[in-house]
């Protein structure tokens, strides 16, 4: 059987429960050898040291762990690290371009679209996809398609304003 678990090395008892993941994170190749149980969120935070992606619930119910996999927003807490083998992952650390911050990062600061900041990486990653998805046409659409990202500080109005601002600027 073809699998990606079995690599060239002979699996020992311990190795059976590890998996090698070859991925690209924020444009740079990455190789992780992790416990098969490791979620993408854990691999990013604990293995890759990219702690910008946050754990707010670990149950797929808050959106704080939102990252992009092959350009689509997903919840990294419910995806196994093994599942991004061969895929492209983008986190908040990779949101800014070489020329400076992403327009959303600037708009979030300008509109005070966060308070404690804990949900912010997830909000930003979600919003970046929202723009690409063409779902920022109205405030109602922005609110609906950003509802997978909880903000307990309640910065929603300012998040909408920031996204609206960037959406208009890129029209």
């Amino acid at each position, binding site marked *: *059987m*073809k*699998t*990606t*678990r079995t690599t060239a090395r002979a699996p020992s008892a311990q190795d*059976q*429960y590890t*998996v090698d993941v070859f991925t690209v994170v924020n444009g740079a190749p990455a190789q992780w050898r992790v*416990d*098969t*149980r490791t*979620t993408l969120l854990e691999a990013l935070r604990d293995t890759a040291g990219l702690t910008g992606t946050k754990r707010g619930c*670990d*149950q*797929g119910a808050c*959106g704080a762990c*939102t990252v992009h996999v092959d350009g*689509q*927003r*997903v*919840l990294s*807490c*419910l*995806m*196994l690290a*093994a*599942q991004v*083998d061969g895929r492209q992952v983008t986190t908040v650390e990779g949101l800014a371009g070489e020329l400076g911050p992403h327009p959303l990062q600037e708009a979030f600061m300008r509109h005070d679209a966060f308070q404690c900041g804990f949900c912010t990486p997830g909000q930003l990653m*979600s919003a970046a*996809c*929202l723009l690409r*998805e063409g779902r920022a046409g109205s405030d109602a659409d922005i*609110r*609906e*398609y950003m*509802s*997978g*990202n909880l903000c307990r500080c309640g910065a929603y109005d300012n998040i909408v304003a920031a996204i609206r601002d960037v959406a208009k600027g890129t029209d």
Partner: protein
Amino acid sequence: MRAFLYDRPTAVGEAVAAVAADPQAAFLAGGTTQVDLMKDGVWTPDRLVDITRLPLRGILVESQQLKVGALTTMEQLAAEPVVEQRLTFVREALLLGASVQLRNMATIGGNLLQRTRCRYFRDPTVSACNRRSPDSGCAAVDNVARMHAVLGVDERCIALHASDVAVPLIAVEASVLVDGPSGQRRIPLTEFWVRADEGPSIENVLGHGDLITEIDIPLLPQGWRSGYLKVRDRASYEFALTSAAVALQMDGDMIGDIRIALGGVGSVPWRAREAEEMLRGTHVDPVRFEQAGRAVMASAFTVPGTAFKVDLAVRTLSRQLLTMTEASR
């Protein structure tokens, strides 16, 4: 989470064989239900066979139906133009479910197999759960039940099947194609799920090693229209308290033909045949709409926390019928 072996085959036959060969193995697709359950310790497979790289993604549009690869995501299916035109209520149900992030992960096959959200089922420290452990009892019946079912349930289990998209899918009588250790077979969704009152610990007719490879969705005939109404506390990102999927074909000011299914109320997605029969060939009549809803809910089993759902489901259906027949009045 319990340690597990991880395989990622690239062919359907390999995947089926891998699971069939190991009683403690299971398939893993989008993970939105399974990874969560593994963290909760409710589900403890020894081996996960990741099927996300199998060639089961994509939508084939035929003249009378859609053939949807089981790994097609909810967002992908919702984006299909034919779904918007000919299966409006499927699209609406998809987009009213979960969040964009989850819809990008969750597959259509996995959605049909999602496990109940019951907090007693999902907490292994609660011992009484007939669904998790046969003959142990049902903690939900005696405790806090709001997001629970009232149809197809009894005092042994009130677990809700919380899917939105399964509601219109059962209304249009979609079917699934299954590959398994004993070969391939087709199962109509109307025969796919097992009601909790028919055996709380069995959720569907699949056997170990059976893999849904495709969902075939009949297109509504030209001239039909359809819609999905979801009622919930929050405006978004919440399971339904009640929902109604209605497809109908008007014949002047008469309802020519109609399909109805209800969500948020059943241990399985609930086809409302009684209501269909009462309304087919009748004039638009709000009183009759309500009577049709009452007929569906007549067999409800309620506990204090779910009693309101009977009335709410009737109202949800009535409102959706009113909305959909309004243009004809």
